[in-house]
């Protein structure tokens, strides 16, 4: 039951509460570039969701079995001496992401030629979409360097996080595309048309998403019926300003 609750918290946290675009501000490049029409934005969101899920699955596997300290493969090769290969994280993840983007590109070119044309340069650019690398690094931070094996993320948590992070990206980019179609009829100052007004709207949306501060912790307390330490995000807790209300009291 706790496992299911944990998965629900991870899923909602990745998709809405700590939305990758509107809370962490990663993946801004396609968010600005491909949010002109709703259908294109939805296609982009699906592509990113697919890539992020595949890449996270592969990178979890590599981290768990090869890269982390005390991984089975290195233990076997060195005869029981734990080696920490996590310095290679970035290179390995970039390889994994680039190859999964290749798969998506071939698939889309074969089966959805109009979408392929519409994406243009942004499809290969998924490779450099930092949201995907961010998800991989986030999973690795819950796999390598975790002292307590019970708290180490399994493949279930990794898949949940990455899939719902992709859904959250889709949600954000589709909402933005809806707003941008409306903005076509608005008299926006010339200097701000396009990317400028999009960034301003994204900023206001991020303000709105600030309201979810603390919802993940509240959800966890409700689901587990007892105060548990913050699994949501240690990085966010240290870098983001403390929640303004309530918790300061």
């Amino acid at each position, binding site marked *: 039951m706790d496992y299911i609750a944990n998965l629900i918290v991870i899923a909602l946290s990745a998709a809405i509460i700590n939305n990758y675009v509107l809370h962490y501000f990663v993946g801004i490049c396609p968010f600005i570039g491909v949010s002109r029409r709703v259908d294109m934005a939805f296609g982009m969101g699906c592509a990113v969701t697919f890539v992020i899920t595949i890449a996270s699955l592969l990178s979890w596997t590599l981290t768990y079995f090869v890269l982390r300290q005390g991984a089975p493969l290195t233990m076997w090769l060195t005869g029981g001496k734990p080696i920490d290969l996590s310095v290679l994280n970035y290179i390995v993840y970039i390889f994994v992401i680039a190859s999964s983007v290749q798969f998506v590109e071939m698939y889309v070119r074969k089966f959805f030629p109009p979408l392929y044309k519409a994406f243009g340069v942004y499809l290969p650019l998924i490779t450099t979409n930092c949201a995907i690398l961010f998800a991989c690094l986030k999973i690795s931070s819950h796999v390598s360097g975790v002292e307590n094996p019970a708290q180490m993320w399994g493949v279930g948590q990794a898949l949940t996080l990455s899939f719902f992070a992709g859904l959250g990206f889709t949600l954000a980019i589709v*909402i933005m595309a*809806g707003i941008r179609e409306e903005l076509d*009829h608005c008299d926006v100052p010339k200097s701000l048309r396009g990317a400028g007004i999009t960034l301003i709207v994204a900023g206001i949306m991020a303000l*709105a998403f600030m*309201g979810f501060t603390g919802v993940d912790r509240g*959800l966890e307390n409700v689901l587990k019926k007892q105060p548990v330490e913050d699994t949501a995000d240690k990085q966010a807790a240290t870098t983001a300003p403390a929640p303004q209300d309530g918790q300061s009291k």
Partner: protein
Amino acid sequence: MTEENKIPEAAGPVIHVSPGPHIHSAALTTRRMMLDVLLALLPAVLVAFWVFGGYALAQIVYALAGCLGAEALFTAMRKKPFSLMDGSAAVTGVILALSMPATAPWYVGVIAGFAAIGLGKVIFGGLGNNIFNPAMVGRAFVMIAFATLMGASAYVDPDSSIQALTRATPMTAIKMMHETTPLSALLIGNTNGSLGETSAIACILGGVYLLWRRTASWEIPAGVLLAVAVISGAISVLHPDSSWGVLHSLTGGALLFGAFFIATDPVSSPVTPKGKWIFGVGIGIFIMILRTLSGYPEGVMFAVLLMNAVVPLINRWTIPTPVGGPVPVRK
């Protein structure tokens, strides 16, 4: 048809072709709507004067100065016609002031006014084009920028001579201290809180006036109140021993003020009746999620902004079918 047949052949039938709407009323102007809203806000303003005294007047002056100044400045910069007289900036200013804590310093109100009009409205092309509710954009801006001056602790001033300010707001009291404010205080309004939200009766009076004048659509407040009532009813079924009931949820905090005055902004809410229901119910659901789970005691502002963001999509998905006409094609 018989009428047209009688027209002499030589003159030919005169058919005026013009796009809709074909029925118009000279009385239905932006200015009249905005005056209606100001009139509807009057009870809340009076209660704010009664409860908070000079603080209320000061906040209204700051926010109005910010909003009117920004409107004049930015419309001049964009070389648009002078638009102060339509009253929309004044409405934004009064709603913004009524959503501020009494103790906020002068610059918070002025900056909020500038952010509301500048970032919330003029940058999108002025009245009618804004995606988000301008007053809430301004308030969210200062809420994040001046967290210590706008947060729950900023509402309380223990040394104040005004009695309401010496206590926590009802929403903070129930969330942090589990103290229930009596229902009578929530109805009359002699509690702490944002200036305009304290009195449920004043908000209902103004809201009913707006609905009666049809300046606000009834679907939105109905959706908000329905969603909050259902969710808080479910919560009180799960926790029967809690003293905070459905009526407390409905009358406490900024819910009524938000449902009647903020969510009903005709520019940033959907155009179709079905869309208005979805919009209202969505706001109600988000308010209850944020109230019960988030770190903030109240979530009306965030809920309105979140639903404002999806309004274009709601409009797109709820295009009504014309009577006898073809089903509209989605782009």
